[in-house]
């Protein structure tokens, strides 16, 4: 059973102290929503957990795995503001490459993942020709193939319509029901069952 423990975490960017002494614990099956005004450090916190940013004080504990170790990177899936899609590649090509970079134990049914987010007709379409909402859907279709245990979703609902938001909420619930952990930041209302919430 995986467990994520954050102890007295503080983060400073330049001369600005974004947050300090942030502590919480998440066990398998739990989902946490991080809220707060713009510039409060939500994205910085997510990037710290992903291993992209450093932090001033405190610690991040995930079993025996250290941040940026191979096991840690395998178990964590990070989806930031940027969709991580190349406009010159098709939806399928993008998805295959990003999946390859992430957790290797995929079901590898990329077409099915695109179908689940309503983009089955766009498999071979170049990403550069799609709308912002469709790009977001492709990025989030990775949630249907990854086997990472901890999901870090930064503003996953931005640019999505209500139908797509419902699909992603259901997927997050399914992931947590099967023992996963999810941390998400959003300014929007979301209806995920048993969701914890903290504010920065």
């Amino acid at each position, binding site marked *: 059973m995986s467990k994520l423990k954050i102890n007295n975490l503080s983060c400073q960017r330049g001369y600005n102290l974004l947050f300090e002494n942030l502590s919480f614990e998440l066990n398998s099956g739990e989902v946490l929503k991080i809220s707060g005004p713009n510039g409060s450090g939500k994205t910085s916190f997510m990037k710290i957990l992903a291993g*992209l940013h450093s932090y001033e004080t405190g610690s991040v504990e995930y079993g025996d795995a250290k941040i940026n170790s191979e096991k840690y*990177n395998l178990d964590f899936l990070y989806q930031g503001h940027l969709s991580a899609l*190349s406009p010159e590649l098709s939806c399928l090509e993008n998805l295959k*490459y990003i999946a390859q970079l992430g957790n290797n134990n995929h079901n590898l049914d990329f077409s099915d993942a695109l179908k689940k987010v309503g983009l089955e007709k766009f498999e071979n379409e170049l990403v550069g020709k799609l709308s912002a909402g469709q790009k977001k859907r492709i990025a989030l279709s990775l949630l249907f193939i990854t086997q990472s245990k901890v999901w870090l979703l930064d503003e996953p609902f931005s640019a999505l319509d209500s139908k797509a938001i419902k699909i992603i909420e259901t997927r997050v619930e399914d992931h947590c029901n099967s023992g996963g952990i999810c941390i998400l930041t959003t300014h929007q209302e979301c209806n995920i069952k048993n969701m914890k919430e903290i504010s920065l």
Partner: protein
Amino acid sequence: MNIFVQTMTRDLKMALRNPSSFLNPLMFFVISISLFPIAISPESQTLSSIAPGIIWVITMLSVLLSLNSLFHYDHDSGVLEQMVISHHSLPLILLAKTSAHWILSGLPIIVLSPFLGMALFINTEGIYILILTLIIATPCLSLIGSIGASLVVGIKNSGMLLSLLILPLYIPILIFATSAVSQSQSNLPIDGQLYFLGFILILSLLVTPFLSALSLKISME
């Protein structure tokens, strides 16, 4: 090793679908070299003595032009973030990207160089050595350049900064490569220059992927 092949294939595919990214530096290479006979002198003696220097300087500048795009697009799209936090080896991924960059920037220059060498009146022996120095040293240009490109990846309009960082590191390659071609035209031994270029290639292959990975992590902070 799979990630190496996949990253290189992906970069080549992307470049072929957006050909201006690698054709522009190549056009710069051909046009710049073809201007020298007009500007200096069309005489064979004058041109053949300065041709190795012209070709090598323009090669460096055109590689430098293409270096900006090495990480820039992936940084803007967010793919670079995913590469940094991937469980795969970051130096291996960056080596794959640099190899794709060499195939798109260095390899076409090697193919074009005999024709441009002939246009600048380099003799047959000199052209063979020019090709040999380009084969050994253009990978070094991409590998060393990847360190600079990873350091300035988050900075807008970083072309000048990249030149200031990288050009001084290219100077030893320039000295030994041009000296090898010039001396071969006079039938002088060039073993020393070729050994030195070979040493830089091996050193670059062993060290630069790790330095690029380190620089990239610092830039992404």
